[in-house]
C-alpha cells in the first residue's frame, strides 16, 4: 500500500504555513498601515470630515452619520430603497421610541 499520509500531512503543514505567513504579513504591514491611517486621520481633522467616501450615490449612503435617517420618502414617494447600498445601511439599532415626554424645563432638570 502506498503511504499517502506524508503527502497529505505535507499539504496540511503547507496550509498552516500559509496561515502563519499571512499572520506574519499582517504584523509586518501594521506600522505602514498605521502611518497611512494616521495621514488619513490628519486629513479628516484638517478638512473636518465626518464620513467615509465608500458609497457616493445618495446622501444617506455618502454621509450615513449625518443623513436624515428618520425622514420618510427621502427621494420619491413609494421608494423606500432604490440604491443597492441602502441594503447595507442598517436602521439605527437604538433610538426609536426610547425618548420620554417632558413638560417644561423644571421636569427636565429633575
Amino acid at each position, binding site marked *: 500500500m502506498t503511504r499517502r499520509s506524508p503527502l497529505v500531512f505535507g499539504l496540511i503543514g503547507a496550509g498552516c504555513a500559509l496561515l502563519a505567513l499571512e499572520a506574519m504579513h499582517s504584523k509586518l504591514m501594521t506600522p505602514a498601515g498605521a502611518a497611512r491611517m494616521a495621514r488619513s486621520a490628519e486629513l479628516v481633522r484638517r478638512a473636518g470630515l465626518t464620513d467615509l*467616501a465608500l458609497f457616493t450615490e445618495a446622501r444617506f449612503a455618502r454621509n450615513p452619520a449625518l443623513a436624515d435617517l428618520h425622514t420618510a420618502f427621502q427621494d420619491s414617494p413609494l421608494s423606500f430603497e432604490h440604491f443597492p447600498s441602502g441594503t447595507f445601511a442598517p436602521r439605527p439599532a437604538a433610538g426609536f421610541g426610547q425618548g420620554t415626554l417632558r413638560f417644561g424645563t423644571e421636569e427636565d432638570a429633575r
Partner: protein
Amino acid sequence: MTPWVRRQQALADYTLAAMARRRVKNIGLLLIYALVIFVIASATLFSTALRHEAEIVLAEAPELIVQNLVMGRHDMISAEIIEELEAIRGVGGVTGRLWGYFYDRVNGANYTLMVPLDPKMVPPAGQALFGEALPRTRGLGWDTAPLFLSRYPGDLFRLDPAGRLSHESALVSADLILLGEEDFRAFFDLPPAVYTDIAVSIRNSREIDTIVAKAGKLLPNARLVTRDEISRTYQKLFYWREGIMVAMAGASVLAFAIFAAEKASGLSAEETREIGILKAIGWDTRDVIAMKLWEGGLISLGAFLFGTGLAYLHVFAFDAALFASVLKGWSVIYPDFRLTPMIDGVQLTALFFLTVLPYTAATIVPIWRAATADPDQVMR
C-alpha cells in the same frame, strides 16, 4: 517514533486509502466546504479591516456637529448660532462647515464639495484640491488639467487644481473637491451668513455629554451628532454589512450543512460493510472511531486552511475583488483603496470551531453505532 504515533500514522494511511476509493465525492466535499469557509472568512476579514480603519480615521472627526432641522430635514444653519455655541463653557472652538453635493451630468458621479476647516489647507481662489477618484472618473489626464463643472446647460465653472489629495486617503476623500469659501458660495449661490452645519470642538472629552445637553436646550430644533455617534454608526454599518454577506452566503451554508450532515452522519451501505469487515478481522471500536475522526478532521481542517488562506489573499492581495461589485452599488465613484491587513484571532478561532468541530463531531455518532454493533449483523 512512539507506538502511538505509528498507530495514528497507520490509521491516517488507511483512512486516506479508503477516502481515495471515493475520490470524486471527497474532493468535491472538500472544495465546497472550502468555498463556504472562503466566503465567510472573506466577509469577516474585510469587515474587520474596514471597521478598524473607520475607527482610527474617524477618531479625528469633529467632537460635535450641530445641524439645523426644518420640517424634519437638514437645512442651512445661521452663522449667528456660532456665537451662542461659543458662549457654552467648555467649548474649545466653533466653526461653520460648508459642504454640499454636486451631481456631475458628464459622468453621472456625485462629488462632495467642501471648504476645509483648517485655513492653511484652503486653496487659493479659483483653485481646488481633488480627491483620488475625480481625475480618474473625469479623465483629467495630466496634473494641471482644470475641472469644468456644469450646473445647468450653458454653464461652466472652472476650477484649477491646487493639488491632488493623496491616493492613500481615498477611503475618506475619493469624491472630495476642497475649495475656498468664496468659490463655494459662488458655486452654490449661497448667501453669506449661513453654513451647512457647525463643527464644535470640546476641550475635555468627558464634558461632551454636558455640552450636548446644554446645546440641546439652546437649540431645541437642532440635530446634535457627536463623534462617538459617528464612530458607532460605522461600527454598526460594517457589522451589518458583514452580516448581510454571511446571510447571502447563508443559502449555500445551509445547503452545505445538509450535504455535510448527510455525508457525515449517514453511512452508506459500502461504509457499513467496510466497518463490519474491519471489526471481523479484529479492529477495535476505538480504532474504527479514530479512523473516522481522522477522515472528518482531515477534510474539515484542510477546508479551513484552504478557505481561510485564500480569503486573506482575496481581501488583502486582490482588494476583495469579488465583493467590490456588491459594495459599489450604483456609485460611479468608488474609492480605489487598499486595506491594511488585519487578522482578528478571536474571529478566526470562532470560525475554526464553528466549521471544523461540528463536522468532525457529526461523523462520530453513526460510526459509534455501527462500530459497536455485531460484525455479522453490520455486514448483512
